[in-house]
């Protein structure tokens, strides 16, 4: 605070107070509008949700008898195109100890490298230590987009 006696009459003090008022009010308006404006800017990921994701791939990018790991929320998923040209998607976390599984074109099976677990193309655990099948996701192709969703 400014000691009134130290400063000559009213005007300068009043001016200073008005300046503080104006500046801080302006700062407040900025402080309110800054987040609001940033909020309106669309985020990098156009749309993301845990129950369905649009893959950053076009259906043509996935050749028959290959598989690709993709991001499903914060967990990995595996997209497989079978040799019969069917698209399938599974959770890529092995049901044994959670390693990331991969597609084995030579066996036409999903395979976990950690302990040699095998899953067939329906996600069923066919050999090795995995105790349960892989969770299967739904795959929808809309034009040039692949949309993978959790089965409900």
């Amino acid at each position, binding site marked *: 605070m400014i000691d009134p006696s130290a400063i000559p009459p009213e005007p300068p003090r009043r001016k200073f*107070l008005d300046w503080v008022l104006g500046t801080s009010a302006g700062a407040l308006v900025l402080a309110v509008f800054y987040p609001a404006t940033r909020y309106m800017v669309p985020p990098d990921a156009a749309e993301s949700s845990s129950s369905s994701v649009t893959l950053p791939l076009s259906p043509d990018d996935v050749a028959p008898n290959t598989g690709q790991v993709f991001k499903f929320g914060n967990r990995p998923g595996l997209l497989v195109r079978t040799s019969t040209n069917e698209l399938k998607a599974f959770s890529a976390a092995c049901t044994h100890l959670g390693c990331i599984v991969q597609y084995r074109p030579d066996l036409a099976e999903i395979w976990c490298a950690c302990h040699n677990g095998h899953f067939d193309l329906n996600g069923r655990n066919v050999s090795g230590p995995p105790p349960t099948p892989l969770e299967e996701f739904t795959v929808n192709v809309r034009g040039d987009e692949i949309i993978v969703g959790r089965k409900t």
Partner: protein
Amino acid sequence: MFATWVGVMLLLTWRTGVIEAQSDPTEVESCVTCHQALPDGPLSDPVTRYGDDVHSGKGFGCVACHGGDGTILGPEAMDPARGFLRDLSRQRIPTMCGHCHSDAAFMRQYNPGLRVDQEVEYQSSVHGQRLVQESDSLVATCVSCHPAHGIRPPSDPLSSVHPLNVAKTCSACHANAQYMADYGIPTDQAEKYGRSVHGEALTVARDLGAPTCNDCHGNHGAAPPGVSWVGNTCGQCHSVQEQHFETSRHGEIFPLIGIPGCAACHNNHEIQAASDEMIGVGEGGICAKCHTEESEGGIQALQIRRLIDSLRIQLDSSRALLESAENSGVEVSQAQYDLEAAHSALVESRAAVHTFRAGAVDSSVAAGLAITDQAFIRGMDALGELRFRRTGLAVFALITVVLIVALLLKIKEIEGPSMSYIMFTREMRLPETRGPGSSDRNDEESS
């Protein structure tokens, strides 16, 4: 062996044609009529139990196994001349069951998926060999595990050979110290198995795929471990570890000096979940069984342990960091997703321990550490975002406080120095306050 085969073949030819499912399953055999009427006991009991038997469901009656003529009432139905088998002793049971179960063409009519080598397998097992060669009637035959008159398929939870019941079925003999006395083998396998990681997976987690007795020992060809290499058995499921093991020095030497492979470290029936603590020569370290701290093996063990520990600790701390950032509402899903690969690396490096070479473990540990380092940096960045929020709040609060103070000063400026800002006291004198004598306010406002 040849003699056995000839016997089996003869029996098969002799019995051919006798056994067939009844054309009409509702038609009651004469055996039932009499045996049902007999007082409770071994002679009537089979009739009451057989209703639930899988064979009964397929249309087989008493004569399918016992022979005789089910169309005649009275004891003459049980005339050996009519094919009645007076003697169904333990020695004869395998051939009796095998009569159908070894006949692929016959079995196809009823259960095409079922194998037809049970009898042959059984003959090769310790049970079968003792039964035939040493006429040991205490050993298990078909009916020991598949109780006669109450046989259910393995998929039936009430079946004695359903995965959840196998251990109980085997231990009926093998946990009986008196019964096993003459064989000189331990009787605590079932108890130990129950405490093992496999037993708990089966009985507690109800994972029906978890191995029980027959998954390691075989079912019909029950053979004791050691006949071949134990690694073959464990490697059925744990194949990566087995491959690593076979390339290791242990894999070379253990068979030569008679150390039982996997079981040397992991035990046989009482297998516990493997832990990182097992690696090492210190407390809880399994390597100390053979290696000292100073030996080459001890040094390798220590090195391997250090590698695994470093990755595990890094993974845990990165994970905790990302989780705390996530709980504070900062977006870290990409970092969490990437971190999953480090978890894979940790599991792989744990499997690579079975090479017993620090160099082999190091390659997967290094891959994992590269990922955890990345995740850690991103976690720190996320916490930076959190600090940004707090700083933003501090700035906002500062602006608000300055504005509030300025407004209060403004009030003071407008109303004069004697103003009390919040409370209004009797002594207040406001320059712009209306004095006494003003009219009723309500009327004034609406006028």
